[in-house]
């Protein structure tokens, strides 16, 4: 009983002591209040506050601070914020808004789902792309494709990536903030950044020889050069057995036609 009483006293006295210290801190914080910079505060309120680090600063606050002190003059560093943030920042700082560069979002450059792509073996290890990639670069025959175990899904800060249920993942373009974390995480490098307003997209990364690609995946780019040769203005360039779309100067009609003509149908409409 006496011990219990002692515990009770200790508990009460420590709590009182803690409350006393807390009150002291509260008073001190009132007394020692520093007027924070109003400009920085408004800048912070415009930024998304995700602290994702795309702007190369450690936090939204440090980016705002750098802009307020004029050491950073580029207002377009925040890709999660997009146009709105950029315009608001430019307005607040009264600087010339640079050209609104098109916002980049992540896309999965692979169509090789469970039906289309061949598997070399069955991977039964820990369900994580990095772990699977250690074993012969994944269980897919195509070593460039999506492993479908969702390292990107787990790392996405805004939950923009979902499993399709067919051995692939899908990026929701409306939610993607373009932080490029999934691009860094993906062991095969099948996540790519493309402009958000892009209409067409080569959903393949395979640089294997045409014959091998055809054997391994029904929807892999075989480097046939039809898109490049037949549709000169479409902006497709084939190198290393892989077609790449240059988004700068492209004729949309040609792209549509190229997509229709593509034998493995790996040029897709977004």
């Amino acid at each position, binding site marked *: 009983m006496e011990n219990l009483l002692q515990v009770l006293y*200790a508990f009460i006295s420590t709590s009182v002591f803690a409350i006393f210290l807390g009150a002291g801190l509260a008073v001190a914080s009132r007394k*020692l*209040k520093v007027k924070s910079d109003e400009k920085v505060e408004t800048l912070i309120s415009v930024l998304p506050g995700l602290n994702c680090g795309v702007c190369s600063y450690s936090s939204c606050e440090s980016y705002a601070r750098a802009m307020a002190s004029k050491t950073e003059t580029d207002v377009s560093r925040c890709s999660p914020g997009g146009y709105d943030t950029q315009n608001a920042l430019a307005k607040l700082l009264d600087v010339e808004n640079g050209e609104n560069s098109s916002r980049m979002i992540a896309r999965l450059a692979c169509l090789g789902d469970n039906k289309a792509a061949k598997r070399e073996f069955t991977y039964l290890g820990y369900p994580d792309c990095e772990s699977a990639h*250690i074993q012969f670069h994944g269980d897919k025959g195509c070593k460039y494709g999506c492993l479908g175990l969702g390292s990107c899904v787990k790392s996405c800060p805004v939950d923009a990536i979902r499993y399709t249920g067919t051995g692939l993942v899908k990026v929701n373009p409306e939610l993607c903030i373009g932080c490029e974390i999934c691009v860094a995480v993906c062991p095969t490098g099948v996540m790519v950044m493309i402009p958000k307003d892009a209409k067409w997209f080569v959903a393949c990364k395979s640089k294997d020889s045409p014959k091998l690609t055809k054997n391994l995946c029904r929807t892999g780019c075989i480097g046939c050069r039809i898109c490049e040769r037949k549709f000169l203005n479409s902006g497709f360039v084939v190198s290393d057995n892989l077609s790449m779309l240059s988004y700068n100067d492209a004729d949309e009609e040609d792209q549509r036609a190229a997509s229709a003509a593509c034998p493995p149908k790996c040029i897709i409409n977004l």
Partner: protein
Amino acid sequence: MTYVGIIITYTFISNLVLSQFLGLCPFIGVSKNSESAVGMGLAVTFVMSLASLISWALEYFILVPLDIEFLRTVTFILVIATLVQLVEMAVRKYSPPLYQALGIYLPLITTNCGVLGIALISVNRNFDAAESFLAGFSAGLGFLMALLFMSGIRERLDTEKVPKYLRGAPITFISGGLMALAFMAFDTALLTNLLRSS
């Protein structure tokens, strides 16, 4: 124990990070470049000196007279956390340049186990006020030293080709362990010989 003995003991022989393995979180987290390592090290030195002193006062003015030493750990944590918060506010108010240099690191060490560790060690060894302060100060210096060395190693590691699955924390822990091995060379025998010859 003489003052020189205390300094040598807590800077080299019982170095908080390298031989007692306390405060490993900031040791790994803030040792990426030497600039932040020095900032963090100075902040820790500052807080450790103050915390040792204040916990000595707490021990001998409150806990011992009231015979409630069993509350030592919890009250030390409370007081140290409050102290760090208070110091942060005061520094922010009265010395903005110092706040720029140390400020961002101060909240990180509010509950650093190294700070609590050195306060408890000082009390366990029955140090007086000056000795406690000195122990805290030299433990902080030892921490600063370990952090600075580690940041040097990591800056060099950045340009090396590290095997993929050792990159980041693993290689840092391995290098830290090797450095701790090197610090095994400092032991009490060394201290005794040093003091005898001087």
